[in-house]
């Protein structure tokens, strides 16, 4: 059976195209609804825009904060680990070696920390209006992209200072950043959901970040580890991201294939598991927050 061409949704009577919202006492976990997220894309856009705008409006130094954080860490690491402890840096000047790692790390850790607090901070919205709850941590993570872009520009500047010119390899930065984003979102939404129920999470997050920092080759190269430990170590997806960044930006000789492969698998798994957990508890947020 075929329909006449005129019978499209635009010309059909209003009640035929009218959307039905079904409210049910839910059982089990809700699926990750990409179509619904797409419908709410304008809200995601405005929340990202709000977060980045407010961040720079409220502080005296504004945009400078985004640069200051990794830059000062670079100085401290260069002095203590590079100069005093004489930690090897795969033949790259130590400040460059550590800063190239701090760029994805700062993006990752800030995104994770802010996502973890996002649901509790936005409780006013959650108790008043409906929208897919995952938008809150998601837009928080995405708003970190602005900071990321700024710190990356500084990295380009540093490369020029050290007379290291970018090659096509640099393009690998994009998929690697996506891995950092997936990891931050996966862990961030998981922490955000737990934070609604257990307010202790906010004290745990700084610890977690600190341990994670030292479990990632930022101040030292992963070449310090011998096999099979090096492969096992790469279960931390940030190992693949950071080593990948160094290879892409600083042109370090060995391409970290295994680490990046493991990072891809682990970060996707973390993302799916985190979002799944979030969806399984999100319906209680408005009642618990």
């Amino acid at each position, binding site marked *: 059976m075929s329909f006449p061409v005129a019978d499209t949704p635009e010309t059909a009577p209003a009640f035929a195209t009218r959307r039905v919202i079904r409210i049910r006492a839910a059982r089990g976990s809700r699926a990750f609804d990409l179509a619904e997220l797409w419908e709410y894309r304008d809200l995601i856009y405005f929340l990202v825009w709000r977060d980045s705008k407010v961040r720079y409006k409220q502080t005296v130094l504004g945009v400078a904060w985004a640069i200051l954080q990794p830059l000062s860490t670079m100085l401290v690491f260069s002095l203590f680990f590079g100069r005093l402890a004489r930690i090897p840096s795969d033949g790259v000047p130590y400040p460059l070696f550590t800063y190239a790692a701090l760029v994805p790390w700062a993006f990752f850790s800030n995104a994770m920390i802010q996502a973890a607090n996002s649901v509790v901070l936005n409780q006013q919205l959650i108790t008043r209006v409906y929208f897919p709850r995952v938008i809150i941590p998601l837009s928080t993570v995405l708003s970190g992209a602005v900071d990321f872009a700024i710190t990356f520009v500084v990295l380009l500047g540093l490369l020029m200072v050290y007379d290291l010119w970018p090659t096509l390899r640099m393009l690998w930065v994009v998929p690697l950043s996506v891995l950092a984003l997936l990891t931050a979102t996966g862990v961030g939404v998981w922490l955000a959901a737990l934070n609604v129920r257990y*307010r202790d999470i906010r004290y745990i997050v700084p610890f977690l970040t600190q341990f994670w920092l030292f479990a990632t080759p930022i101040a030292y190269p992963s070449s310090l580890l011998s096999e099979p430990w090096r492969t096992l170590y790469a279960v931390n997806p940030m190992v693949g991201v950071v080593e990948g960044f160094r290879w892409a930006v600083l042109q370090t000789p060995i391409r970290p294939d295994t680490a990046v492969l493991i990072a891809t698998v682990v970060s996707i798994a973390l993302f799916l598991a985190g979002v799944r957990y979030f969806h399984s508890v999100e319906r209680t947020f408005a009642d618990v927050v």
Partner: protein
Amino acid sequence: MTSTVIRAQGLGKEYRRYTLGEGINRYATLRDSLTDAMNSVVRGRRRVSTTFWALQDVSFEVSEGDIVGIIGNNGAGKSTLLKILSRVTEPTLGEADLHGRVASLLEVGTGFHPELTGRENIFLNGAILGMRRAEIARKFDEIVSFSEIEQFIETPVKHYSSGMYLRLAFAVAAHLEPEILLIDEILAVGDAAFQQKCLGKMDEVAGSGRTVIFISHNLDAIQRLCPRCVLMDHGRIIADGPTDAIVSRYLSSVSDTAGPEQWIELTGAGRPANGDVRIVAARYSGDARLGNRVATGGPLEVQCVLESNRARNLSSLAITIYSRSGTKLLNADTIELGKSIPIRSGRTTVGIRIEQVHLNPGSYIVGIWIGDSIGHALDHIAEAFVLDVVLVRGQGFGKAAHGAVACHFDVVPDLASSASEPRLGDHVRSEADS
């Protein structure tokens, strides 16, 4: 033919409360969960959790274009019902279908950010309420002119007065174009002229065939706007029909818990209970003609049962009324009257009567205090009960309904040409003379 746009079937909502010794703890901590797990493994004991049904077996249908008011005492389940219909929370039982685009206004200005300008907040708030970016851009000028704050549109809203803030927030909300609109007690904002404008906008909404569900303590507004009304009590719908009949039934009925004329047990309320005198129970009553409800501008009498270990004179009995957000609005303390209250050993019932309560319609929290002559508390219950204030008849669109406190006022015309204009020089001289 009108079609059904909202159909609710057996909706129920159960809330769980965890009780830890005295008082209610809303947030669990990891420690609690860990010790719970330990206790249940080792001793088979668990933390006490009590459940209650905020909503029970609620079924109703709303046809396209209906404007339905929902009324009922505090705790009747009105807000819970609206939260379920707007999908903020999920029902424990039952189901509901809504046909069409839904917008819910459980509060005006949701998501307003103080650091952002009026312009930026219009876009942010519009997106939060479910408008598309292009839609907001198209209606932007209309929203700004409706709000009447054109000249401040580039100013961060933290510099706005509360009136300006509400105007802007309402202006955004008023330009939503959903097929179903759910509103919780927000209409009454701004000054009288702005209220008339909002009323006009609401009439427009009603006339355009949109379906509206509206919760309010402002019975006057309900009677003006809603031809049909639903009365709720204890999480159930107890009456549904023409508004005038339902409102008079509501006003003549007496609610049986924490409502007017019922004793509220206060011995269990969390507080340091080492005093020699204790507040055991309290009740309140308002206007006898309104089923003892408290009306804006009407009387309020709060009676307390005190228990003392000996006969004594009590210097201070005070009733404090707080807004829902915790602002102290009113404090009636007998110490200001300079009269001490004789109480017997055992139980004595005493009360405070306020002739006119100038509170606008809404829910308020009442605290009770008893103290000695030098201001030490003998007993103090910060949140004894919730008081509902209703508005029965008003002028215009809800009398002076912006803010918590009502007052009588009028315009003083043309001050400059008035003969009674005070002159500074006269004033200074008269003071120097005395």
